[in-house]
């Protein structure tokens, strides 16, 4: 098994765990964490794909991952802030449809 | 007049009504005088433009404007004699109805909304008249639905809203059928202007795919049959009676039912052509349906105690004469049907004006409350009488002329059963109108007086329109032999347009 394939498999496994978590966990914090995990899975896949040969590394996926990380950080920050505001206003940790 | 001016007359006449509507909306409820000015100015200007077009057509000009609305689909306005028959009817009656409506509604709420949509309604009717192809016809036909809805629900009470729902359920359903039919027609033959005697490409298509052509024809006719109130699609019309009297007058005489009947004429004569429609087996069915509607409407009218409802069922019956005339084929029946397009309009608008006058002046809605009303309101009652006798078909009034032509037209086509239908209709008409006339003129007024506390006669803004249209009922009959009578014009349409019949 090549290194790239191994990384890709791990990325796939992570993505599966993340989606499972998103579906089964209703706590907002866990859901935000699950989204982060999914992001990491995608980034891992991109990094794995960047390796084009023993010595050749494609820089473009790295740039994409960097951009993606910036977006993921801001999105997480905003989601946390929103969840806090929601918690502050309602005292709930879950969305109404999920039994808050 | 220059050729360019002629080309833009149809557009100008259409724009007049639209601009009037926009101005009235912008003025708001409070500015009564300006609104009245716009109302009368718009109606008069449009009438003059239509009259100029009639003059132009007599001189042999053709009016047409077209621009592409979609790739390969034109928005086309064209003034052929048939278009002008309907356009003239709508323009004249718009002016009269505007005068009446101003007097009738000037003290109720939401006048800007009412008169704005009233104008849009007439713009749509004018567009239907001058539509030069099926796309344009559909466009204005659907626009009419939208413009009439606020008029039907004008009073805003639950009965009005329920009537509005019923109206929409029928007309939007019909509109959907017409849309599907028109699009299918375009998909099959592409952009084709209305052609007197039938579009050649449609004939060609019908040869190759008769089943599809028949299906499309049925869809198209089903679409217009709703507004024409052909049985069993007539349910909305009596319900829409809750609207104010000028709206009923407009709906029944000019705009909605006439748009449907006019659509039947256009589709049969100018899209498929009568011979093709007959060959596809559609016209016999249409004639049967129209005959059923004629009898059904009259029978239902007998049982009504509300005056406007009786008039509504009478409309169901009378408008079907137009479809009957078209469906029978032959020049005489078609002339009768086309003349009836105008005659029924003038007669029915008079009746609704008078019903409105009774309601507005004396608070009378029910037929059994009309006893002795002729002594209190002789002028209104005289107008009512002329129109009612015209409906029955008493010579020399307008209704007689149409029925005569329909009758001899049917005999010429070897359809003697139609004469039976006409006779039955005349008897039924007499049965539901004569008792009303008897109450008005012969029975004594109630001892306790009339419910409303109005003056002796209706307000002159209400009376004059009714008298004018009643006079038109008389004149259309008396002067039927002249070239400019509705009959004369109908003969002209048939002679020029349908020599093949």
């Amino acid at each position, binding site marked *: 098994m090549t290194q790239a394939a191994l990384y890709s498999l791990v990325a796939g496994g992570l993505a599966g765990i993340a989606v499972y978590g998103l579906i089964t966990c209703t706590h907002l914090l866990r859901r935000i964490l699950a989204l982060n995990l999914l992001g990491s899975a*995608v980034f891992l896949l991109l990094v794995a794909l960047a390796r084009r040969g023993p010595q050749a590394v494609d820089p473009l996926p790295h740039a994409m991952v960097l951009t993606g990380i910036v977006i993921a950080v801001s999105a997480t920050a905003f989601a946390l802030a929103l969840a806090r505001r929601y918690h502050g206003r309602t005292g709930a940790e879950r969305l109404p449809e999920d039994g808050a | 007049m220059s050729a360019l001016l002629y080309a833009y007359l149809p557009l100008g006449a259409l724009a007049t009504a639209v601009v009037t509507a926009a101005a009235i909306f912008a003025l708001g409820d409070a500015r009564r005088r300006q609104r009245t000015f716009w109302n009368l100015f718009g109606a008069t200007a449009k009438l003059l433009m239509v009259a100029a077009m009639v003059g132009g057509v007599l001189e042999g000009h053709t009016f047409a404007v077209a621009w592409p609305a979609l790739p390969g689909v034109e928005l086309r306005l064209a003034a052929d004699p048939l278009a002008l028959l309907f356009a003239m009817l709508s323009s004249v009656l718009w002016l009269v109805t505007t005068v009446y409506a101003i007097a009738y509604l000037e003290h109720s709420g939401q006048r800007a909304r009412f008169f704005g949509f009233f104008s849009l309604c007439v713009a749509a009717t004018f567009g239907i008249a001058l539509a030069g192809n099926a796309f344009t016809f559909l466009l204005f036909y659907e626009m009419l639905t939208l413009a009439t809805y606020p008029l039907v629900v004008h009073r805003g009470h639950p009965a009005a809203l329920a009537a509005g729902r019923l109206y929409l359920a029928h007309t939007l359903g019909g509109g959907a059928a017409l849309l599907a039919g028109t699009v299918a027609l375009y998909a099959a033959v592409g952009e084709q202007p209305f052609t007197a005697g039938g579009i050649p490409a449609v004939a060609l298509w019908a040869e190759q795919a008769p089943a599809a052509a028949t299906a499309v024809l049925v869809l198209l006719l089903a679409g217009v049959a709703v507004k024409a109130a052909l049985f069993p699609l007539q349910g909305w019309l009596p319900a829409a009676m809750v609207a104010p009297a000028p709206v009923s007058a407009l709906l029944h005489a000019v705009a909605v039912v006439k748009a449907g009947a006019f659509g039947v004429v256009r589709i049969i004569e100018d899209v498929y052509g009568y011979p093709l429609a007959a060959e596809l087996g559609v016209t016999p069915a249409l004639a049967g349906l129209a005959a059923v509607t004629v009898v059904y409407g009259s029978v239902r009218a007998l049982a009504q105690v509300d005056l406007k409802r009786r008039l509504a069922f009478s409309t169901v019956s009378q408008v079907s004469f137009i479809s009957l005339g078209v469906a029978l084929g032959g020049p005489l029946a078609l002339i009768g049907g086309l003349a009836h397009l105008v005659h029924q309009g003038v007669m029915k608008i008079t009746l609704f004006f008078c019903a409105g006058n009774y309601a507005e002046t004396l608070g009378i809605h029910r037929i059994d409350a009309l006893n002795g009303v002729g002594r209190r309101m002789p002028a209104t009652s005289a107008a009512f009488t002329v129109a009612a006798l015209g409906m029955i078909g008493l010579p020399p009034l307008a209704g007689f002329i149409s029925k005569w032509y329909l009758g001899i037209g049917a005999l010429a086509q070897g359809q003697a059963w139609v004469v039976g239908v006409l006779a039955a209709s005349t008897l039924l008409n007499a049965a539901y109108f004569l008792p009303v006339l008897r109450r008005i003129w012969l029975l004594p007024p109630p001892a306790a007086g009339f419910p409303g506390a109005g003056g002796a006669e209706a307000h002159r803004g209400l009376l004059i329109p009714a008298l004018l249209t009643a006079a038109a009922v008389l004149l259309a009959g008396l002067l039927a032999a002249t070239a400019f009578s509705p009959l004369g014009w109908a003969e002209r349409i048939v002679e020029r347009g349908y020599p093949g019949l």
Partner: protein
Amino acid sequence: MVGALSLPLAFFLPLLTALAVFLLRARRAPWLPLLGGAATAAAVADLIGQVAREGPQVYHLGGWAPPLGIELYADGLAALMLGMGALVALAVTAYSGAYLRGQGHDAELFWPLWLVQWAALNGAFLAADLFNLYVMLELLTLTAAPLVAMGGERAALAAALRYLLLALLGSLVYLLGVALIYGATGTLHLREAGALLGDGPAAALAAGLISAGLLVKAAVFPLHIWLMPAHSAAPAPASAALSALVAKAGAYLLLRLWLWTFPALLSVPLGWLLGGLGAAGVVYGSLQALRQTRLKPVIAYSTVAQLGYLLLLLPLATVAGAAPHAWQGAAYHALAHGLAKAAAFLAAGNVLYSLGHDRLAGLHGLTPYLSGSVLALGLAFASLMGLPPTAGFLAKWELLRGALGGGQWGWAAVIVGGGLLTAGYAFRVLAAAHAASPPGYSEIRPPRRVPPVMAWTPLLLALALYLLGLSAVPALGLLEQGAPEGLG
């Protein structure tokens, strides 16, 4: 005339305006958003002219060509969407100042968010590579969710959170698909990737992931659940932008990617699947709209239904006789729906502003302050129903002509039936507005006068639909520029 620069300016001008408003504060420069908006609209108009005259326009940011640089690409479809976006965005910008003041929303928060959203929107229409699109999609999400939360109530916060979580999931699933495409082809360019991708299993997986992500963004049934709460809780001008533009961008990208990047994968069954989802949305959204008791939820569910029509293009694009008409109809529908939906939401905002609520049962006997808004609502609904003479009618005609011309009776039934369902909920609202007040009825609080700019904006937007209803030929001519093969 700014020549080739109008293409990047369409993206950067709103972004710069957002920055300027953020630094200067909207309080001190209340004219700034409208000025920036007008400049953006001018750049867009110039770009539309260029596309119409010279065909598709390409611009490489900073002179760097792909794969390292970023390419902006404007063809006829993008130009049409940019133009629609500019009209709606100008209306939203003109409307918002008075609305935010009157309803006590924080304008300093609103303006930068909204202007960045406009930039992101233009960016999404113009992006030529898949990753750039991901960035724009995230920007749209990260500006849209706080706009929803600005509604302030508990329901608004919950709706914003739900929307954010689902939209982020959608973006990441989309990015997963992009990563697969890059791995398979080594390029991110929309058309180049399409040419290299073929129709193997990797391509299918990538297309599936990307579509799943975009189906969330476009609120396609059954992934629509976030839309109604979010779009009805947001402040009215934000609702207008979200429904008319942001959700539309999702549907736009779905169509663009299927027609430009994955045309080889678009088989008949797949087209039927995606079109079927769209049709389900048409029916489900309309039925839900019929059941709502408040005005904004009706309009929001109407978005679910109307976006469904766009997906009908995919099955029709696989039928030779149907494709060109359906393509034109879908594009014109996107345009007409944008204007109509924005007009409807802004008019609903006026109702809220004036009455303090938008319950249908309380709309009866609407005050004279609202007659223009009700007219705008009615005119906009007429276009949504596809009644003439509106742009919506011409769009429906073309879609229907495609379906009937290609012998696709099922899709034709959806188009005609959807129009009738739309009429059902539209006239429910209009009937309520026409109803007379019950005797003895008086408002709990007296209706408030709507400022002229708020009264006129929805009306003008609605009237634009009638102008566009007179002829679709100029817009459809523009659409020809760079149209995919078999559709133009």
